[in-house]
């Protein structure tokens, strides 16, 4: 049921068409180019008989008078088994298939099936004929990698329906009928394993929303211990370029203890996606022994791909995530970068000639960001299981200044703020999360009081260091100097983590707690130094000892050797060798 219109204006990726008949806001339309190629678009404004559309492709070659086919369906994604491991663009086109069928370049007008319609899945019914079901109730399940992928009654269902027919155990494709439902009015509905859902409408059918209460372990000490994140929570990573936002996201995608990671590469470098695409099939997930790609979906709309599709890509990603939360998994969305998405909004807003807000961003920027992050959450599903969607977004503030609209709009809605700093990355202190600026409203894996004790050294150390810049080292008391050294020590051996070292790259909670206690012992210890040089030397050696400890695998007897040496020294024993 589509309406035909005619193009009257082409202005970069915005096309205005004249139509008669009813059109729906956010409906999909296709602009027909002279050579018959159809360019996908979305209606973003309606004025009388004029509709403004953002075109998801290069508009080169479109002419006034060209036909526009306007559908009644909002921009939607296809959901079902087989999404995991895929690489999609912002409109859910599978990029690998696209490469096979279309070639090296993303030629406009090619739209491919998101799900493999021929692949067979081993279906096992979990409901029975005669059961009464509502939207999102389980009908059966298939095995997708290691997960039980529940096949649910359509999300769009209204009211209660009875299962009339249910396919027996066996293999089916995602388009085969697996059930027939009937409601009290006698309407019947055929159900397959696929569903469609509009990306701009949150997908969440559950008994209740729960308060996030389980930490999401990222295996990064500075996050898990100092600025923790919860399953179902939200956090943002603002930082100037070069501070390591994307690296931090990639590390998280590798090591986080989570069922499924959805990476939304939104307007960022293609190279970063390529790294994930090429490496994940070969990297092992230590939790399952399978490859990382088997727990990853990539939605990639990189910076040189059309800007309108960039705007939709974050919605595509989060809708896929909501779907798998509905299936029962703990899902993490890594959106990199939300600033590019905001810029895409800004570009369209400018073309629509809306009154600009701060830095020419549209006035609705903040509410749009809020609505996006609010799609995260921990829920109790219809069948009582808990599932969560955690959202992490990087922000790329212009000039590294956090006082800009996107950062500020994001800080209002997230539960944790991991602010990256120039200064730390310049000093090669990675992850470059600024321990004095960042905050988290969540509780982590280590007792709050203990964390606060350790954290206090960082602020004091910084003050003392600043003072030393003015009064010099000789004007600083040895006690203060030791506090400064302790803060540097904590920074070097606990906050900093070497992402390129096999062992240090991921620090499990157990190991974090253990190391934290060891580090605390040093922080608590009352040292008695005669000179500052002696103090400096000792801390050099302590730092080196602990660094080596960090590089030594868990369970290796060498760990004990290093510990004993440190203990011995703290107990007043012989001087450190620090070459363990």
């Amino acid at each position, binding site marked *: 049921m589509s309406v035909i219109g005619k193009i*009257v*204006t*082409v202005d*970069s990726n915005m096309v205005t068409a004249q139509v008669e008949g009813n059109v729906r806001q956010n409906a999909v339309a296709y602009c027909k180019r*002279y050579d018959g190629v159809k360019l996908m678009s979305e209606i973003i404004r309606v004025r009388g008989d004029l509709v403004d559309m953002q075109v998801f492709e290069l*508009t*080169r*070659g*479109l*002419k*006034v*008078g060209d036909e526009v086919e306007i559908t009644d369906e909002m921009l939607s994604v296809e959901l079902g088994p087989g999404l995991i491991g895929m*690489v999609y663009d912002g409109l859910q086109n599978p*990029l690998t298939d696209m*490469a096979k069928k279309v*070639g*090296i*370049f*993303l*030629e406009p007008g090619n739209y491919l099936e998101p799900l493999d319609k021929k692949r067979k899945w081993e279906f096992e019914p979990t409901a029975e004929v005669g059961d009464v079901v509502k939207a999102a109730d389980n009908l059966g399940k298939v095995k997708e990698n290691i997960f039980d992928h529940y096949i649910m009654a359509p999300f769009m269902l209204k009211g209660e329906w009875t299962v009339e027919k249910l396919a027996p155990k066996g293999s089916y494709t995602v388009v085969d009928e697996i059930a027939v439902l009937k409601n009290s009015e006698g309407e019947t509905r055929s159900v397959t394993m696929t569903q469609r859902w509009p990306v701009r409408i949150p997908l969440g059918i559950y008994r209740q929303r729960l308060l996030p209460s389980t930490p999401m372990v990222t295996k990064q000490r500075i996050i898990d211990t100092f600025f923790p994140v919860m399953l179902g929570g939200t956090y943002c990573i603002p930082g*100037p370029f*070069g501070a390591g936002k994307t690296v931090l996201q990639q590390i998280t995608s590798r090591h986080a203890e989570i069922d499924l990671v959805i990476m939304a590469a939104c*307007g960022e470098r*293609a*190279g970063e996606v*390529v*790294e994930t*695409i*090429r490496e994940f099939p070969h990297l092992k997930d230590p939790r399952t022994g399978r490859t990382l790609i088997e727990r990853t979906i990539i939605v*990639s709309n990189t*910076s*040189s*791909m059309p*800007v309108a599709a960039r705007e939709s890509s974050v919605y595509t990603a989060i809708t896929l995530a909501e779907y798998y939360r509905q299936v029962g998994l703990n899902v993490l969305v890594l959106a990199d970068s939300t600033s*590019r998405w905001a*810029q895409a909004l*800004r*570009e369209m807003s*400018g073309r629509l000639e809306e009154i*600009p807000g701060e830095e*020419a*961003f549209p006035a609705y920027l903040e509410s749009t960001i809020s609505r996006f992050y609010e799609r995260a959450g921990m829920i109790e599903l219809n069948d009582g299981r808990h599932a969560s969607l955690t959202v992490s977004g990087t922000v*790329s503030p*212009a*000039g*590294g*200044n956090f006082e800009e609209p996107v950062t500020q709009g994001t800080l209002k809605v997230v539960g944790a703020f991991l602010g990256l700093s120039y200064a730390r990355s*310049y*000093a*090669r202190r990675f992850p470059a999360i600024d321990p004095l600026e960042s905050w988290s409203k969540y509780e982590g894996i280590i007792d709050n009081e203990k964390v606060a004790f350790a954290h206090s050294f960082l602020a004091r150390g910084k003050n003392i260091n600043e003072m030393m*810049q003015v009064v*010099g*080292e000789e004007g600083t008391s040895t006690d203060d100097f030791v506090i400064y050294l302790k803060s540097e020590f904590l920074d070097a051996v606990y906050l900093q983590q070497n992402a390129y070292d096999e062992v240090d790259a991921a620090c499990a909670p157990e190991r974090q707690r253990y190391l934290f206690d060891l580090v605390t012992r040093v922080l608590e210890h009352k040292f008695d130094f005669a000179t*500052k*040089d002696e103090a400096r030397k000792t801390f*050099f*050696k302590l730092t080196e000892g602990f*660094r*080596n400890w960090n590089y030594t695998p868990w369970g290796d007897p060498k760990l004990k050797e290093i510990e004993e040496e440190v203990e011995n020294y703290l107990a007043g024993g012989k001087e450190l060798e*620090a070459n363990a």
Partner: protein
Amino acid sequence: MRKYYNKIDRIAGSVATLKADNVGYEEIAKVQGSWGESLAQVIRVDRDMVSLQVFAGTRGLSTGDKVHFSGSAMKFAFTDDLLGRIFTGSGEPRDGRCELTDNLVEVGGPSVNPAVRLMPNRMIPTNIPMIDVFNTLVEGQKLPIFSIPGEPYNELLARIALQAEADIIIIGGMGLKYDEYLYFKDTLESGGVMSRSIMFIHTASDPIVECIQTPDLALMVAEQFALEGKKVLVLLTDMTNFANALKEISITMEQIPSNRGYPGDLYSQLASRYEKAVVFENGGSITTISVTTMPGDDVTHPVPDNTGYITEGQFYLKNGAIDPFGSLSRLKQQVNGKTRDDHRAIMDGCIQLYSQCRETREKKAMGFEMSAWDEKLLKYGDAFESEIMSFSVNTSLFEALDKCWEILGRYFEPVETGIRSNLCDKYWPKKADS
């Protein structure tokens, strides 16, 4: 059947608007006037009005001048005859030789599917230790040189052109002073690489629209060579001029500026050029090194700022040397683990110490007493600057690494460097007297 229009309705900036029908977005038109002729591109169609961006500018354009539309987007020849040639920003020969009309390829086409890209993983040696050791250049990378206007950025670019390994070198000059253009030409000729080079040059006095076309032409040709399996090195200077040209045009088009007058899509515009850097499965690649001059040495200026978010790192050129702070090659981790086992440790260790040295210098400048440790740092810093950082150092990677160890050994004990003990055991210079 050629349809000519001879009534231009509006002329403003470089944009001419006229009534025309059946015209496609981004189609190329030819404008013929008494002053000569110029290409123009459709930048907006609105009912029966078509807005054209006239490449040669609208100076002297008459409302009665002739316009006809080509029916297709901007195209440029791609043949091996391009090698050794010099063109303007609109693709006209600048070297007085013949025009090329064979095998026309569309300029500014769609982007490469990320799924067919390969991960860059081969180092490009440049024999500049600040690049090779500390911020290794990788084939398929895009890296800008951030510089204040007075620094020798074009010299650095030319040196990379001559010393880096590449099948084809393409230079895109935007807003170049005529002298700079001649400098590049002479350097390539005397360096013996002109026969595998192509230059697209827009000088400061050329029409502003050609400035925007320059990188597109350069990158289109680069892409075609890369598709043939060639390793192409693209050098773009200066991208700030390119951004300023965008600003000029968008302001004339009455677009709402976002930041310091630059258009809201500055990021996307820069990205679509930089993202052409690629490695293909057939072995072809595009490596892009550009120059972004920072007005007032301000890295938060929209042009360097947006660039930094797009490119895979940046080189800061300061006081005639590549400054280790802020300079970053994001892809270096892809290659520096395979060169020599001490590469990464030296990279981090030397910079951490040099950073401490800079702090100490500040303290010293404020008149503080120097501790024994401070003295060590100061001596180390001086040696590091003159023996490693200096622009005049021209040495291979391994030699540079050895040199770093030698400098460390001269001033420090192994434990003070923060470098892992097993590496120190292996590489620490053996002192003759102990």
